[in-house]
């Protein structure tokens, strides 16, 4: 009896809810700006019938408000029924992840050039060509990505959307620089890197990459200068073990063994214990569904000692577009849940809120998973670089031993910097470092150290 009453009440409420009889429930929900609920209802209403052009337009409209993040949890067979550029983008992305490259290319090709995901589609298409070993096509995709992202950025009205397209544009440009680096075309690579403005979110990350380019060109002073930029207070959140390794390696190539050893010792004494402690704390929570999500907002008691260090890693993660999109989705779902709880009848609440709760939980799990993956990827890179630094240490000892055996010594015990050792192009100015970092000169530093690799015969006391 109770069930019957509940059913009658639900039918009556739904009828009242969709006042105009012609409107479907998803349309009513959309009209009330309950976009996440409307999207779910839309799929329920349309899945078992033939899809018409209007359905596709409505889906695109709904996805404009919700974003496509939550579509990742949907079955590919369901999404295939809706041939829109958004669903094709998601399906192509899944095909790329599962290494179905041919299918991925077909789907990327069907994304409309005016669609908002076209630039990102081109970025991913370049990934497919990279996997297929087709550098020419890869470069073409990056260039198409850059051009379309720039066009979309100029047309966008919202600052957030502009920022998104700027990011896509910069990633494509940087990938082009990386493409040249891989092909050992270092000058072209530097040219592309130098097009990224210093204000860009990506810029601090690129210092390390540019330092590698200079290293491969044999300009160890410039590589060291770029890495020095990380010591500036403005960039203290950016700590990369690989930057420490590259600095030690560059000093080694200049035969400045003592400088190299100083970096190695500092890494072993200061950073490695810190990473190990952090790793042991985080590994305990590896299987938690929310620990890393909560960590994004407040480090727990256990991490208090490493608070500043963890905060630096988390700050970097929070600056990612992915985090902004996911967190924004959670915020919008919360808003929708609040409005439904405040304005709708209990039967409607009961119908809509559990689904929204699930969507929200999925998003939280996604952020948690991504944060966990990022942190562990970062920490797992440490033992590799630690072992490389150890090898470098052994190599320095071996070189020093050779000098002793051959009764030779390096030309100078400690080479001082000199302007004559600075390599620069006609577009690069030169000022001496006065002990302070200036924001406008960050990233343009070069050391002026002379290579110490020439050896001279050691003069013994007897010979004197």
């Amino acid at each position, binding site marked *: 009896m109770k069930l019957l009453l509940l059913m009658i009440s639900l039918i009556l409420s739904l009828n009242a809810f969709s006042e105009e009889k012609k409107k479907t429930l998803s349309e009513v929900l959309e009209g009330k700006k309950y976009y996440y609920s409307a999207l779910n209802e839309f799929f329920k209403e349309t899945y078992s019938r033939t899809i018409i052009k209007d359905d596709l337009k409505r889906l695109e409209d709904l996805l404009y408000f919700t974003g*496509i*993040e939550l579509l990742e949890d949907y079955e590919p067979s369901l999404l295939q029924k809706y041939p829109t550029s958004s669903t094709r983008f998601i399906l192509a992305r899944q095909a790329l992840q599962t290494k179905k490259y041919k299918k991925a290319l077909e789907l990327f090709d069907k994304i409309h050039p005016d669609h908002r995901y076209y630039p*990102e589609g081109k*970025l*991913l298409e370049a*990934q497919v060509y*990279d996997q297929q070993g087709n550098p020419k096509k890869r470069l073409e995709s990056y260039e198409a990505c850059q051009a379309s992202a720039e066009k979309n950025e100029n047309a966008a009205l919202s600052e957030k959307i502009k920022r998104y397209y700027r*990011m*896509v544009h910069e*990633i494509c440009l*940087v*990938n082009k620089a*990386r493409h040249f*680096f*891989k092909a050992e075309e270092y000058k072209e690579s530097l040219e592309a890197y130098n097009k990224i403005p210093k204000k860009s979110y990506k810029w601090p990350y690129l210092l390390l*990459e540019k330092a*590698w380019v200079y*290293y*491969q060109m044999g300009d160890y002073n410039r590589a060291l200068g770029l890495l020095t930029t990380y010591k500036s207070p403005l960039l203290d959140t950016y700590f990369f073990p690989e930057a420490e*390794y590259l600095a030690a*390696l560059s000093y080694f190539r200049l035969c400045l063994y003592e400088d190299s050893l100083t970096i190695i010792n500092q890494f072993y004494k200061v950073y490695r214990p810190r990473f190990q402690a952090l790793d042991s704390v985080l590994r305990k929570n590896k299987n938690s569904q929310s620990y890393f999500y909560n960590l994004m907002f407040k480090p727990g008691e256990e991490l208090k000692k490493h608070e500043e260090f963890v905060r630096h890693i988390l700050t970097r993660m929070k600056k*990612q*577009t*992915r985090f902004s*999109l996911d967190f924004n989705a959670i915020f919008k779902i919360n808003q929708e849940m609040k409005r439904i709880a405040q304005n709708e009848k209990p039967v409607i609440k009961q119908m809509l809120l559990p689904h929204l709760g699930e969507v929200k939980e999925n998003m939280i799990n996604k952020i948690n998973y991504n944060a966990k993956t990022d942190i562990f*990827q970062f920490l797992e890179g440490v033992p590799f*670089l630690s072992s*490389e630094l150890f*090898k*470098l240490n*052994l*190599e320095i000892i*071996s070189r020093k031993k*050779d000098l002793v*055996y051959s009764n030779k010594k390096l030309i100078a015990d400690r080479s001082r910097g000199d302007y004559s050792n600075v390599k620069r192009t006609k577009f690069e100015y030169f000022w001496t470092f006065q002990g302070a970092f200036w924001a406008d000169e960050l990233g343009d530093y070069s050391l002026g150290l002379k290579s110490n690799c020439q050896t001279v015969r050691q003069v013994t006391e007897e010979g004197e």
Partner: protein
Amino acid sequence: MRILIYVLGIYMMSDAWGDDQQVIYQYKKYEKFDLGNLEVKGQLIAPGDISVRERERRRFELDLFSRKNFDGFIKKDVESLR
């Protein structure tokens, strides 16, 4: 002919008889050498020209990591978007 057969027979018998005899070898138990009195005939050459031909010491250089591509960085960047 008969004589020849007898001679051969006697020879073979005497050979077989000889196998049974034990041969005892004896070595000197003690012998003294006076090295001071030993004289070597010939020309004496002082070993002043001993030399070892120098060869370069083989160096084993460790294979230090040097980045050749940023493939991992590209993947990470793409993942950072969504």
